[in-house]
């Protein structure tokens, strides 16, 4: 038994927590105590945490291989804690969301890259950032980034992935704006963050849709319930019809109003694509990545080339089970990728900033990965992720080494990164040159290097395979058959041609880059004015003449001009990562060299992850036979690109390109300014937001401040002005007003209140009317039928009794006189109802009070009794025996009926306007 498996069983693989936790500890220590710890301790902490994490990742990888060899499922899980529960759709159960980590071949490979390349870049940074005041801050961010990236990759569910997703976004923001003293850097950080937010929106939408459709957010749950995503939903028109469509001609309106359907998978896939496009810098959200080069170069290498930007590709691969259900979303992924590859490559052709070229190259290569994933070749796309991580990290670190060297001479971010100031660095920094050249060979597709194999694999798959529509291409919706999206015939060849064109341009601009940087003469002597010597420059008699406008303006270069510090090779901490990455860039292709060596290591390794995916992909029949012939376009692209660049920049010294630029100056300028996409966004989206803000300001100024505030203030001021008249400030006036109020109260209290209570016994026909007592009250009554007063004088009698015959009524008048001689009268109507058929009526007590509006409360309008049940408003106030026999066989009582059923209509009360005299 494998000792590792004993300590870490597959269902409780705590090593994952260690892998994730170590960089977090490093980030915490460096971030909180870094300033006091000193540079050495920070270095130790940062390197050891990532290094140990790397070792643990290797152990995990070995364990995965062991499980694979033992025919077990290569998937280890560490269960953290239940994080929260979210409600799914109304009839579904709650969806638990657990903070679980899991590792399988895909993520196992990713963590090797993250921690391995991460460690090398940490090592590199110890020298690159040596002189920076924010040394500890830098390493805290870098460790935090590694932590977040590991959470992203190892998270067992979308929400946990999202934590890492946001974490890397945050670290990216912090590191792009690392030198935040310059506004441009801070702005670039913000731009990256906001562009990523747009993508995150898509990811959140996808999560919501998955909760709705699948009722799960963890990978296994999503895979298990993926078939639920095939339910078509009407997505258009929203509501029943398009508003104002009736204004259009009938045919257009019918076309607009025709219902459109999309499966849940398509919606999820497109939302995920938006999220992935944000993180992986695809059209239309790629704009942040070139600006992200404002950060320190190791950051560009680690975050914006090797790891974070591949998170989108990782996400697509991870949810391949969802994507294969939707050819429409796959089509979008593939074409977004191909377009991005092509588009970014055109921009990279003309840039002069070494990091900008590499940045657009990264965007372009990410497009290749999306292209691969989009045609269903997930493992090919992931293979390119791997090789790209090696060669692009190497290129960026090499560029960093060059910039580091240039800083010896030129102190200025712009100038030290400008290729026009470089050239001939091969002599000064041989190690950097060799490793850079190795990475260059990989990216341009030099035969047998890693990039050659991975790029060729993607192009091959783009030509031969395409996703197949699920369920035979149609579904029944409401009894009608709805055609699902099918992959068009022209798509493979189009994608292939776009890919080859992008590869050609890649070869061209990368060759231009390496020629401009390392070959020819060093042009940096003349940049700093003080060293621009007046004496003549002799020719250096070099083999190559890499020139551009700059060099040609100068008469020549002489040894005497080389005053001041020279560019120099970097220390071993910087060159060692270069060597390792350069070597990997060359040989990593062996992992999956289908075409020439029939090596399928990576495909086999990833097979458990993508099993079931293959069934949804249609492969052309003769694809095996096409494998070798399809190498030719890739080789031709390499040859054309490199050869063209060599011819243009080495053999002809850049003359042809300059001539071309002069012939089409508008186009050149447009491409040089990155097709002015930033400006376009500025005009449209930012402009719209600005307009909204302007409107809000206007609204605030004129409506809120002007109308509301000023108007309210005016009203209050007017009221105040009116009230001020009453405010004489003389105390006696206030006292006088108080007296007036007291007099009013006194008047109120001196009014008598003629209130009476009736105790009615309908059965016996006895009624007792008692008047409410009061200070100094005297009463007189009129109980006779003619309504005459019993006496002329007021007396002390507060209660009268009278009896009535069945079905008769009597009007009783009461007059109350108080101590001041004021009198109030009240008239009451007593009525004895006919006995109810249903049985004896109960004795009732009815309060009669004067309501707020002067009417008597408790008044009952006489109305026919429907069937025994009497729904009077007084019903519930009457004290009635709880259970009454319902006459007529139990007709359902109307709403509001008295509890207990029928009640005789109580005969009480009549209006009485008898008020105070």
């Amino acid at each position, binding site marked *: 038994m494998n000792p590792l498996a004993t300590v870490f069983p597959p269902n409780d693989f705590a090593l994952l927590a260690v892998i994730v936790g170590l960089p977090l500890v490093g980030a915490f220590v460096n971030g909180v105590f870094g300033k006091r710890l000193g540079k050495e301790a920070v270095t130790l902490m940062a390197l050891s945490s990532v290094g140990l994490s790397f070792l643990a990742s290797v152990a995990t990888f070995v364990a995965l291989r062991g499980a694979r060899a033992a025919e077990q499922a290569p998937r280890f899980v560490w269960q953290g804690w239940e994080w929260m529960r979210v409600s799914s759709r109304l009839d579904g159960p709650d969806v638990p969301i657990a903070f679980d980590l899991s590792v399988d071949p895909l993520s196992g490979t990713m963590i090797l890259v993250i921690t391995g390349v991460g460690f090398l870049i940490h090592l590199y940074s110890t020298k690159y950032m040596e002189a920076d005041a924010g040394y500890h801050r830098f390493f805290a961010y870098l460790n935090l980034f590694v932590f977040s990236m590991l959470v992203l990759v190892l998270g067992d569910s979308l929400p946990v992935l999202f934590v890492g997703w946001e974490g890397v976004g945050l670290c990216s923001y912090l590191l792009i704006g690392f030198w935040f003293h310059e506004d441009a850097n801070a702005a670039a950080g913000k731009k990256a963050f906001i562009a990523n937010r747009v993508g995150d929106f898509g990811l959140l939408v996808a999560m919501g849709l998955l909760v709705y459709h699948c009722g799960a957010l963890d990978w296994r749950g999503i895979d298990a319930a993926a078939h639920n995503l095939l339910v078509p939903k009407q997505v258009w028109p929203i509501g029943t019809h398009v508003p104002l469509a009736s204004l259009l001609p009938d045919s257009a309106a019918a076309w607009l109003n025709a219902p459109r359907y999309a499966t849940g998978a398509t919606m999820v896939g497109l939302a995920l694509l938006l999220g992935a496009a944000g993180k992986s810098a695809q059209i239309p959200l790629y704009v942040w990545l070139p600006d992200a080069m404002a950060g320190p170069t190791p950051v560009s290498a680690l975050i914006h080339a090797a790891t974070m930007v591949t998170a989108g590709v990782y996400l697509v691969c991870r949810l391949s089970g969802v994507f294969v259900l939707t050819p429409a979303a796959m089509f979008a992924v593939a074409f977004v990728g191909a377009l991005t590859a092509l588009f970014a490559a055109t921009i990279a052709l003309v840039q002069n900033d070494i990091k900008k070229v590499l940045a657009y190259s990264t965007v372009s290569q990410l497009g290749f990965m999306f292209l691969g994933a989009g045609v269903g070749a997930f493992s090919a796309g992931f293979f390119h992720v791997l090789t790209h991580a090696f060669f692009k990290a190497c290129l960026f670190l090499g560029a960093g080494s060059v910039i580091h060297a240039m800083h010896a001479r030129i102190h200025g971010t712009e100038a030290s990164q400008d290729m026009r100031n470089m050239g001939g660095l091969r002599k000064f920094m041989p190690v950097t040159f060799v490793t850079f050249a190795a990475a260059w060979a990989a990216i341009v597709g030099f035969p047998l290097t890693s990039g050659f194999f991975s790029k060729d694999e993607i192009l091959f798959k783009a030509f031969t395979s395409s996703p197949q529509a699920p369920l035979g291409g149609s579904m029944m919706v409401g009894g009608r058959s709805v055609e699902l999206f099918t992959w068009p015939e022209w798509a493979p060849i189009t994608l292939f041609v776009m890919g080859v064109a992008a590869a050609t341009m890649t070869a061209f601009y990368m060759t231009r880059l390496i020629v401009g940087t390392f070959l020819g003469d060093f042009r940096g002597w003349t940049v700093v004015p003080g060293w621009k010597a007046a004496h003549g420059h002799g020719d250096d008699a070099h083999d190559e003449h890499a020139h551009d406008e700059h060099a040609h303006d100068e008469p020549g270069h002489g040894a005497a001009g080389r005053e001041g510090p020279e560019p120099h090779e970097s220390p071993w901490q910087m060159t060692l990562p270069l060597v390792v990455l350069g070597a990997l860039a060359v040989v990593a292709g062996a992992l999956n060299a289908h075409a020439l060596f029939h090596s399928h290591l990576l495909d086999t390794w990833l097979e458990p992850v993508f099993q079931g995916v293959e069934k949804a992909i249609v492969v052309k029949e003769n694809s095996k036979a096409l494998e070798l012939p399809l190498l030719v376009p890739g080789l031709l692209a390499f040859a054309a690109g490199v050869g063209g660049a060599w011819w243009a920049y080495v053999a002809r010294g850049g003359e042809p390109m300059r001539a071309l630029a002069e012939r089409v100056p508008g186009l050149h300028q447009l491409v040089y300014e990155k097709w002015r996409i930033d400006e376009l966004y500025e005009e449209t989206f930012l402009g719209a937001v600005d307009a909204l803000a302007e409107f809000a300001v206007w609204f605030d100024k004129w409506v809120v401040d002007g109308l509301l505030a000023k108007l309210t203030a005016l009203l209050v001021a007017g009221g105040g002005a009116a009230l*001020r008249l009453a*405010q*004489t*400030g*003389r*105390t*006696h006036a206030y*006292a*006088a007003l108080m*007296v007036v109020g007291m007099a009013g109260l006194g008047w109120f209290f001196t009014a008598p209140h003629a209130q009476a209570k009736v105790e009615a016994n309908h059965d016996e026909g006895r009624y007792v009317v008692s008047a409410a007592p009061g200070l100094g009250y005297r009463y007189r009554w009129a109980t006779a039928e003619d309504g005459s007063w019993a006496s002329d004088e007021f007396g002390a009698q507060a209660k009268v009794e009278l009896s009535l015959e069945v079905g008769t009524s009597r009007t009783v008048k009461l007059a109350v006189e108080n101590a001041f001689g004021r009198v109030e009268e009240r008239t009451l109507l007593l009525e004895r109802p006919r006995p109810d058929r249903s049985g004896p009526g109960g004795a009732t007590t009815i309060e009669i009070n004067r309501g707020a509006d002067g009417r008597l409360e408790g008044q009952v309008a006489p109305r026919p009794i429907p069937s025994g049940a009497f729904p009077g408003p007084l019903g519930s106030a009457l004290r009635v025996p709880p259970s009454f026999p319902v006459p007529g066989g139990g007709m359902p009582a109307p709403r509001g009926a008295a509890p207990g059923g029928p009640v005789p209509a109580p005969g009480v009360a009549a209006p009485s306007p008898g008020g105070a005299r």
Partner: protein
Amino acid sequence: MSAFGHVLEHYVLVATLIFGIGCVGFLVRRNVLVQLMSIELMLNAVNLALVAYDREQGAGSTGQTFAFFVIAVAAAEVAVGLAIILAFYRLRGTVDGDVADTLRH
């Protein structure tokens, strides 16, 4: 009228009269000194009523205790009130209550 002076209502009537006089004095006079004296009159009237009702009640001496506290509070009130009058006089040079109308502004 042998009960004259031994009936609650007589005392209450006297208290009412004195209270009314005090009240009118407070309202009519502008001299703050006299106004303060009027307040004292009213307090005394209330005290008289309290003591009279206490006598009517017979047992216990709650009314007298209450009156005792009223006297204590009245003493404090006079001290502060006269101090305020002095300060007011220093500020305005008069004891005319109508001058004290700063509250209006």
